[in-house]
């Protein structure tokens, strides 16, 4: 059966009911990958702290690069293995750093992943979390140059993919963190995480993903199952290393020399939460006339097709329905043929 390459986006930091937590959209990604035969999605869909999974039908592509793919600027090339380097924020406490290094060793010893080396940033990244906005999580880092410098060093040593571990401020008792852990709010740190990985993607153009280094949290008996995978171990690094281990190479286009596995011209659809149509990947797909499958998935935004009026948008109630739509597209079945009532075909006047 033919494939129907599809992007699956769950925007970071807007509190999506499915996918707004710790890799809790991973089962959905597997379903959509099975339906499409080829799914392109971003790390926060796949990363569940200590838990993750590989799927040969899923391309793991960091958000900034995924946007570039949607814009038609890069192609994706499958690889057997990436040679991973890790950037550690020099602001991380020694004990937590050792925990992360042991995770990297474990991924080499137990999973056979090629984690080659690591580097400490010259200066702390100094994360500033934006706590003013309850709709969308955000923030910046104070020392972006030190991050880029560390990444450049790894690439010069032959690394082909980069994991970043940044020290986040201890806000374990904050209202935002507690709400998130109990399944009620927006992930307070995911916005800054996206900024960190976007910087590496933008300036160094290699596969990358980020894991936060956090002080261990106290036990919470009201923990929401969707946040539970972040409470299993000391670090969130395993899922990042698993995802990066065979993330595709990013091939600048046009390019006649590299064998590209997935060209952006092959893309057919994007699946996105209803009301989250204001992201770059969606608007790039609109630009290219692709199918937008808009799925009800409660979150904090209301950027809907009521305003965009894009004709090629299909609204569905859940991801199971989205999978059915993708299967129909893949098989070339007219969607109206399986809906009722079914209208007669229309005559077009020669004078029109």
């Amino acid at each position, binding site marked *: 059966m033919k494939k129907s390459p599809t992007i699956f986006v769950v925007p970071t930091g807007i509190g999506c009911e499915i996918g707004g937590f710790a890799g809790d959209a991973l089962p959905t990604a597997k379903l959509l990958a099975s339906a499409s035969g080829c799914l392109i999605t971003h790390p926060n869909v796949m990363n569940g702290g200590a838990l993750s999974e590989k799927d040969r039908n899923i391309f793991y592509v960091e958000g900034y690069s995924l946007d570039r793919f949607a814009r038609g600027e890069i192609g994706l090339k499958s690889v057997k293995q990436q040679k991973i380097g890790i950037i550690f924020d020099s602001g991380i406490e020694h004990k937590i750093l050792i925990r992360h290094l042991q995770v990297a060793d474990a991924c080499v010893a137990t999973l056979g992943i090629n984690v080659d080396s690591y580097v400490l940033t010259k200066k702390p990244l100094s994360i500033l979390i934006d706590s003013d906005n309850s709709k969308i999580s955000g923030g910046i880092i104070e020392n972006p140059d030190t991050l880029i410098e560390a990444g450049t060093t790894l690439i010069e040593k032959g690394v082909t993919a980069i994991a970043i571990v940044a020290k986040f401020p201890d806000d374990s008792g904050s209202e935002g963190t507690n709400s998130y852990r109990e399944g009620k709010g927006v992930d307070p740190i995911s916005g800054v995480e996206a900024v960190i990985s976007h910087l590496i993607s933008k300036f160094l153009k290699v596969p990358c993903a980020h894991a936060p280094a956090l002080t261990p949290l106290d036990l919470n008996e009201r923990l929401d199952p969707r946040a539970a995978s972040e409470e299993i171990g000391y670090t969130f690094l395993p899922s990042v290393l698993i995802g990066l281990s065979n993330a595709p190479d990013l091939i600048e286009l046009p390019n006649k020399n590299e064998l590209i596995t997935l060209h952006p011209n092959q893309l057919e659809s994007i699946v996105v939460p209803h009301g989250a149509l204001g992201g770059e990947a969606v608007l790039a797909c609109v630009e290219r006339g692709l199918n937008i499958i808009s799925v009800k998935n409660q979150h904090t935004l209301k950027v809907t097709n009521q305003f*965009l009026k894009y004709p090629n948008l299909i609204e569905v109630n859940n991801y199971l329905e989205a999978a059915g739509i993708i299967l129909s597209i893949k098989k070339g079945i007219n969607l109206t043929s399986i809906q009722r009532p079914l209208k007669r075909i229309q005559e077009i006047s020669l004078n029109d």
Partner: protein
Amino acid sequence: MKLIKVDFCLDWPGSIEVINLRKYVIRNLIKKGEVIRWSIIDIQNSKESYDIKKLRINAVLAN
């Protein structure tokens, strides 16, 4: 390089079709800095003109 957060409103005139919306936003963003991350986080119909929509853009830029 220094990162800045910006949150601003942008008028979306009816003369700009939805297929050109991304480029329209980018043209306005790059006046303020190099784009790292952005999205439209709200859209409202303008109260002043039926032909204009008000976009609220949230972005991180580098300068």
